[in-house]
């Protein structure tokens, strides 16, 4: 069969055909073509959120502050020549006059040493009641507190994410049973259980001597265990809820309809929508872990003795408060700064990354 062509060089169409009749179209002008140009760079979810985060002055200040604190706690112990449990001594002789010195002062022995031509690193925050350099102790305390907060949050995140996503994906009876378990753990009074478990673990856990864990002491290990046992339920609930609601969205259905594999759906559609919630609640978990640690330090269940934490430093400082108020001020200020900046950064991230709040 030979095909007939019309004036435009198109095959002649039957009157019922849906084929496009080119004679009814004009060619695009140059100006119209320019409308198709990409005016702004295509942006990813992460970059978009970061851009909004950078416009939030409080969040930016908190971020800078946190970076400064982290750099300080890494660098300072390399510069300052004192150890956190080191009792001050001059030329190998114990410096008995160096107890409870105010910031930036030297003891008599040190003054004599300097007068004889020696150099002594200044005691920036003074010294404590056992002649130890307080600045180094506060820095190490910050290290311990931040590390406790960070690792406790990671434990919570891991357990909560695995449990919550299994429960959310499976649905049905598995979900029901898993969530009943969560309900029961959730209704236990967490702080009392933390105290109880700490009391018990303090007496029962034996740590290998000389390891980093034994320096922290059984109380911190029990704190981690307790966080792993109790605090993940909030995270698991959150992630399950997120996955359940995102799973029902039309765009997931659309992605399924065009044949996307479940791996792609999870990576491209479900994760970007709940990763912000996960990161934010992890960020907000850190201050709560730091609070819990300082609370436990207060009732005598904190880190092992020579090792300082911000909570235990503040607690020890309460004793000689009227004579040496600065000993409370430094660790207290540090806790406030860390908690405040983490809270503000978390809030800022929620505003920047939560697509539902986008204005």
């Amino acid at each position, binding site marked *: 069969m030979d095909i007939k062509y019309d004036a435009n060089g198109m095959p002649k169409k039957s009157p019922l055909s849906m084929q496009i009749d080119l004679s009814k179209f004009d060619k695009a002008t140059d100006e119209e073509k320019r409308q198709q140009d990409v005016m702004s760079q295509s942006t990813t979810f992460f970059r978009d959120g970061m851009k909004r985060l950078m416009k939030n002055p409080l969040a930016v200040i908190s971020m800078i502050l946190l970076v400064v604190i982290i750099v300080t706690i890494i660098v300072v112990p390399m510069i300052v020549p004192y150890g956190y449990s080191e009792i001050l001594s001059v030329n190998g002789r114990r410096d008995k006059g160096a107890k409870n010195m105010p910031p930036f002062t030297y003891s008599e022995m040190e003054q004599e040493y300097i007068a004889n031509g020696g150099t002594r690193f200044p005691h920036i925050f003074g010294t404590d009641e056992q002649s130890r350099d307080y600045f180094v102790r506060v820095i190490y305390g910050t290290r311990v507190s931040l590390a406790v907060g960070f690792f406790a949050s990671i434990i919570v995140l891991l357990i909560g994410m695995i449990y919550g996503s299994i429960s959310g994906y499976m649905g049905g009876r598995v979900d029901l049973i898993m969530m009943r378990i969560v*309900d*029961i753990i959730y*209704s*236990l*009074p967490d*702080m*009392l*259980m933390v*105290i*109880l*478990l700490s*009391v*018990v673990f303090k*007496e*029962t856990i034996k740590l290998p001597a000389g390891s980093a864990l034994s320096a922290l002491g059984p109380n911190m290990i029990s704190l981690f265990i307790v966080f792993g046992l109790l605090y993940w339920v909030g995270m698991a609930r959150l992630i399950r809820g997120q996955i359940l609601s995102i799973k029902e969205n039309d765009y997931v259905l659309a992605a399924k309809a065009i044949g996307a594999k479940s791996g792609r759906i999870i990576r491209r559609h479900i994760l970007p929508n709940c990763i912000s919630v996960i990161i934010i609640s992890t960020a907000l978990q850190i*201050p709560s872990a730091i*609070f819990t640690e*300082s*609370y436990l330090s*207060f*009732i*005598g*269940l904190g880190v092992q003795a020579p090792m300082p934490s911000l*909570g235990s430093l*503040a*607690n020890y400082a*309460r004793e000689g*408060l*009227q004579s040496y*108020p600065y000993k*409370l001020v430094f660790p*207290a200020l540090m*806790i*406030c700064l860390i*908690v*405040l900046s983490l*809270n*503000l950064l978390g809030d800022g991230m929620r505003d920047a990354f939560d697509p539902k709040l986008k204005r």
Partner: protein
Amino acid sequence: MEKLTRYIIKRVLLAVLTVFIICALTFFLMHAIPGGPFNREKALSATTIAALNARYNLDKPLPEQFLIYVRELLKGDFGVSLKNGREIGTIIKESFPISAKLGLLAVTVALTCGTVFGCLAALTRNRLPDRLIVFFSTLFTAVPSFIFATLLLLVFSIQLGWVPVWSATSHSYILPVIALAAYPMAYTTRLAKTSMLDALDQDYIRTARAKGVHRWKIIFKHALRNSLIPVITYAGPEIAYIITGSMVIETVFTVGGIGSQFVLAITNRDYTMIMATTIFLASLMVIANLICDLLYKAVDPRIQYD
């Protein structure tokens, strides 16, 4: 209505189960600690220990001991303190009223002041009162309670001498209540502010305004009622916070409440006391949470019973 009854029964059963789990956890964990109650510096003779063990049922297998313990608990007998030999039931009876008064005052202050400040902040959005309230509520959520309490005690009791220090003769609740209420108040303020802003954004508010309803009537009759729901929801966790917070506050201000008794028991390793107080306080929290949950469902008819 049937649904509501079923919901109430389910919640009560869950609460009873939770209390039982707490009792079991506490009992078996405390018994996992090595060393019996009669380990003294001066060793007792084997026959004495055996007699004592028989006297306190310690020679029976652990599950049976647990059943005996629960039976005694149900009768209101908490056992005897290991340190001073006093009946724990009496200690709780003496110290709990002080803690209850302190806690109730703190809850009231936190809820009312929090709501008022939150609404004030929402109504003066981005102006000076709002800025001040946001500043202070953010600050108060970043200070550990024992530091705040210590500073209050130092400044107002010791330096300025405005408030007497807590003693057997003078009971001044003002500073402990402020210290205890600070964190939940700051949290309630933030909660009330967001929910008030949410409520003010609703269609029914616009309708009311379009009809020419007076500004204050809109705020009190329409916005406030709906914005109170999240605040009520927070009451349960708030009570739990105040119970644990009171341990610290009572210790700092040397208030002889049940919280400071608990801290003292931990310092003294008084295991029977720790066990009894944990069970008592935990049950209290579970009951408070149950009541709050039921009230919440009663206040908001839109809630689903699942």
